[in-house]
């Protein structure tokens, strides 16, 4: 039932109109009548920019090879926040260690893809498009959005914004075929302003601009992109500023960009923006030198911000509606370099946080001695995690988004439809 309904809806959306039989209409009505959660399920994606060193985030403290490879920067067994008798979290991650103890953090180990690419930019593309094998213009989240939106439209669920990007530049992951994802990171400035001296003219100007944009056709390469972005900007500025008023944070967020961003996401979730995907990143992980301090600070910020976000959502009774995926474009080399740092490597852990997440450690940590070009071998393909989220969280057919089938991992409670 699930798949056939979705396929039916997508087919309808592609045709532009819905021509359904009476029986099909009844089936749809039954689906729409199912009780709705207070907010539709949302995914927050946090990319750790720069290539996060997985070995010093999820430390294989029981493996002597780890201490041999990293005489200068290894984290001692006594410092590690133990998850089980093999691995533990970086000592800066006490916030997420608490979330783990509550059973709401999943740690997937040795995640990667075949023929690891060690360029920041190329590997990032691979993660964002979901395609390690060749060039794809759209992102895995963008394609998921296309499916989610056609379904939402059919069920007449109003989402003010289908997804929100909080990074300065829209990542490739959110490039979709049909949807222009808005970027917002400074709400205070996100307002279409006009000359305050002539306030009466604002409505006239806005009306003129909207008319002009809606009818703007010119045979130049970027005009459609500009038109879509301009229209989305005006729509978003109009709605967003209103909806997030009246929110009160239910946790103390740490200072810094990620804390601010997650607080803003919580504001949007609580305000009923109903976006399905929120995207944000945290930089500072390209730790070629002095890694202990540098990575430690970033992991603390990550851990504190995500733990606060988790707590805040719980205070608003929305913690069952949001999961958070945390990954980086690659891990780092096993051995430390000559600068108390590490160079670009391959496989690394991926984290998933949320009340709906089945907490635990998934898979074994990668062998530190059986290596691939000096780097950790992957055991879990990153697309297995994508597939699990697409299926269990969003109720989508992973094959339609990823182009292939992948063995799923039971990271999430079963989707209820």
């Amino acid at each position, binding site marked *: 039932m699930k798949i056939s309904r979705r396929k039916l809806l997508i087919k309808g959306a592609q045709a532009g109109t819905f021509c359904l039989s009476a029986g099909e209409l009844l089936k749809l009505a039954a689906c729409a009548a199912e009780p709705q959660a207070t907010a539709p399920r949302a995914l927050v994606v946090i990319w750790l*920019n720069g290539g996060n060193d997985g070995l010093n985030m999820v430390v294989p403290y029981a493996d002597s090879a780890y201490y041999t490879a990293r005489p200068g920067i290894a984290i001692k067994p006594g410092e590690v926040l133990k998850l089980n008798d093999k691995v533990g979290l970086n000592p800066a991650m006490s916030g997420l260690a608490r979330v783990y103890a509550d059973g709401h953090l999943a740690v997937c180990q040795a995640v990667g893809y075949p023929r690891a690419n*060690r*360029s920041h*930019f*190329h590997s990032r593309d691979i993660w964002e498009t979901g395609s390690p094998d060749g060039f794809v213009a759209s992102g895995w989240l963008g394609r998921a959005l296309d499916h989610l939106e056609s379904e939402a439209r059919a069920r007449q669920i109003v989402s003010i914004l289908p997804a929100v990007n909080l990074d*300065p*530049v*829209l990542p490739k992951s959110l490039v979709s075929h049909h949807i*222009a994802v*808005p*970027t*917002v*990171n*400074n709400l205070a*400035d*996100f*307002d*279409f*302003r*006009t*000359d*305050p*001296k*002539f306030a*009466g*003219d604002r*409505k*006239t*100007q806005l*009306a*003129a*601009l909207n008319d*002009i*944009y809606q*009818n*703007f*056709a*010119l*045979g*130049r*390469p*970027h*005009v459609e*992109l*500009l*038109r879509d*972005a*301009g229209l989305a*900007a005006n729509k*978003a500025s109009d709605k967003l500023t209103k909806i997030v008023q009246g929110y009160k944070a239910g946790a103390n967020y740490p200072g810094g960009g990620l804390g601010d961003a997650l607080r803003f996401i919580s504001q949007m979730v609580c305000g009923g923006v109903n976006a399905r995907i929120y995207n944000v990143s945290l930089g500072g992980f*390209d730790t*070629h*030198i002095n890694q202990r301090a540098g990575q430690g600070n970033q992991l603390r910020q990550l851990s504190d911000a995500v733990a606060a976000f988790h707590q805040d959502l719980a205070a608003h009774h929305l913690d069952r509606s949001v999961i958070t995926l945390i990954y980086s474009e690659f891990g780092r080399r096993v051995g430390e*370099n*000559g*600068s108390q*740092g590490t*160079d*670009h490597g391959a496989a690394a852990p991926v984290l998933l946080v949320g009340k709906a997440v089945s907490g635990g450690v998934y898979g074994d940590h990668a062998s530190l001695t059986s290596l691939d*070009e000096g780097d950790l071998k992957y055991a879990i393909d990153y697309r297995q995690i994508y597939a699990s989220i697409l299926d269990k969280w969003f109720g989508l057919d992973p094959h339609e988004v990823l182009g292939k089938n992948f063995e799923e991992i039971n990271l999430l409670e079963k989707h209820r439809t």
Partner: protein
Amino acid sequence: MRHVYSHGETGSIRRIDARNVQLLPRKDAFWIAQLLRRAGFGASPAELDRYQKLGYKATLDELLHPERIDNSALESLLAREKFDFGNPYAIKKWWMYRMLHTANPLEEKMTLFWHGHFATSLQKVGDPKVMLEQNKLLRRLALGNFETLLLGVSKDPAMIIYLDNQENQKGRPNENYAREVMELFSIGIGHYTEVDIKEAARAFTGWHTNQKRSAFVFDDKQHDDGEKKVLGQRGNLNGDDVVHILARSPDTGRYLAKKLIRYFAYDDPDGDFIERVATQYQVNGYQIRPMLHAIFSDPSFFTNRAYHAKIKSPPELVIGAIKTLGIRNADIDLPGVIASMGQNIFEPPSVKGWDGGKAWISTESMIERFNFATKISSQKFEELKPFMSPTQLASRQGLKTSHDAVNYFLDILVDGDVPDYTRARLVKYMETDLDGKATRGVKNEQVLDAKLRGLVHLIMSLPTYQLA
């Protein structure tokens, strides 16, 4: 034949751009304006006038030879500002003033190109003076020999700090610089192996800065003088050798050609255009200037494929507006405005610099662009005095009707390149009162001023205004 683009009759333009047969005016003035939007940051009416008297070829020649131009007015203007270069904001403002007031726009445009190419961030480097020195290096060698530039950058203290070569030592190599010099600065991804990177890292060992981190030093005790093999060449290679190998590779010529064409002409150049420009690199001893000449005189630069085909970068948008509208009291926070639109100079987002092109556009950057237009056009925004007086401009031009005003401002701001509907809708906007009611009669001065300001705001918010 006088004009570089008139080698053929209209038919040849059609042949070049078979996908789109729309013909564009074959007038010097039209293409000179485009040249200045690309090779510079737009132009004021007076500058346009001067360049148009020179003609296209002489204008291009002038732009390509900054060493022949007297730029002392800029230097004395900068000297009067008494910048404190220990302050990060000062170096940003200094550079924005250069972009705005220079007599050598292409030199600044290329400096900005190299800043994105050899991206280095103040955030990690820390000392603004070191960043300023790098900026001067990029400007000095902006149009010259690429091997000299690549070597200069490899020994530049800001770069050494930014990509951790300071830590790259014999027996303890750090691969950061070796990877990026291949992937991003020269031959490009796909033309080297992981082994090449490891070996090149060894060649750059001991390339450090002095204690004050203000000058390059070669620390021979920290240099690995064993045998290495990089891109097929074997020997006791050092950093100079690696730079030499990389700069002379035809892959570098093609990589730079593609990037320069995308920066100056259009986003998706075909292989032939890239080859034409890359050839210039090889036959002229790795010089940048002939590549630029090739781009700005290539037949495809004078077609629909290039015209209004690039999204303006934040400095192009902001400085262009100031020049076009003759804004004098430009006491605008220029570095802050362009940063809000996505280009925080001296602080690129990563070692890859700014992606540019489509990446300049998001809902947020559009709002910032709209609001910059508001700021520029308003009678009173946050500042005490307005930045411009459209009423003055209009009366100087003798504009009598709403049509006149719409046509004039469309002409100077977007070359008049809009759909008919836009033009009509702007006239309709002009023919309303401040309460939105239609009015055909004479407006009082204040209403006219408000509507003209609104008109400038709307035109600067059009999709076409975002295009160079």
